[in-house]
């Protein structure tokens, strides 16, 4: 079985890294909550800090980029 990385964040929830990409010199992660798969988010990673992406235009670009990487 494939090895997966699980992150525990300061909201005390555990998230699986489903995909990651570098876009515009920034690193982005696509995270899905282990206990509630409906809770997912796209975040920008800077060190140990994650910032949730909220810009819809950037989100749609990231979705395409990440889905191609994940294929």
């Amino acid at each position, binding site marked *: *079985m*494939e*090895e*997966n*990385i*699980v*992150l*525990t*964040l*300061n*909201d005390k929830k555990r998230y*699986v890294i*489903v*995909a990651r990409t570098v876009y515009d010199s920034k690193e982005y992660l*696509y995270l*899905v*909550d*282990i206990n509630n*798969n409906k809770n*997912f988010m796209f*975040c920008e990673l800077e060190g*140990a*800090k*994650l*910032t*949730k992406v*909220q810009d819809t235009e950037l989100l*749609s670009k990231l*979705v*395409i980029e*990440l*889905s*191609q990487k*994940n294929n």
Partner: protein
Amino acid sequence: MEETFTIEKVERKTDKKVQRTRDMGTVILQLSAATISAASACGCLKNMFDNESLLLQISVGICGINMVGIFAQYFTNFMEELKHPTKKDIEENALTKFTIEKVEKVADKEVKKTKTKAERLLSSLTGLVLGTMALVCAGVGIPNYSANLFELISRLFGSLGMLARANRLADCWNYSTEEEKQRVK
């Protein structure tokens, strides 16, 4: 307002729950990408034809193909998993409580029914893809078409890729049928 989090712990895991979360996340991601692609192809077509009913039919077709492909991939993975159960899976699986004869009879009927459905689905999807491709080829002949045509073609080839995955699902079903036949013998 900006939402930020900090990473408190990083673990490497290989258990099934984590794998299923990843699979589900992949399905959500692919569905979102398919929807965005369909909307983008929709925009390209609007420039080319400026005909809204035609546009609607084609975008629904592309979106449908993508979605079927994605679900096909998901179920193929699921069935692959079923084909290679671990010792623990077999021990935990309630089906082992039935006699082999009983399982074979039910499975054979169900597999036959599902196979027919899959064949019908595949033939209609092939028709849909070929029809869409023919339409695009016809579009090449239209003067002053948009440069976005190339983007549209690449999206359609993406859809064909998804169709190939649907084919993989059918192979998987065929494999199951053959396996059931062997068991009966």
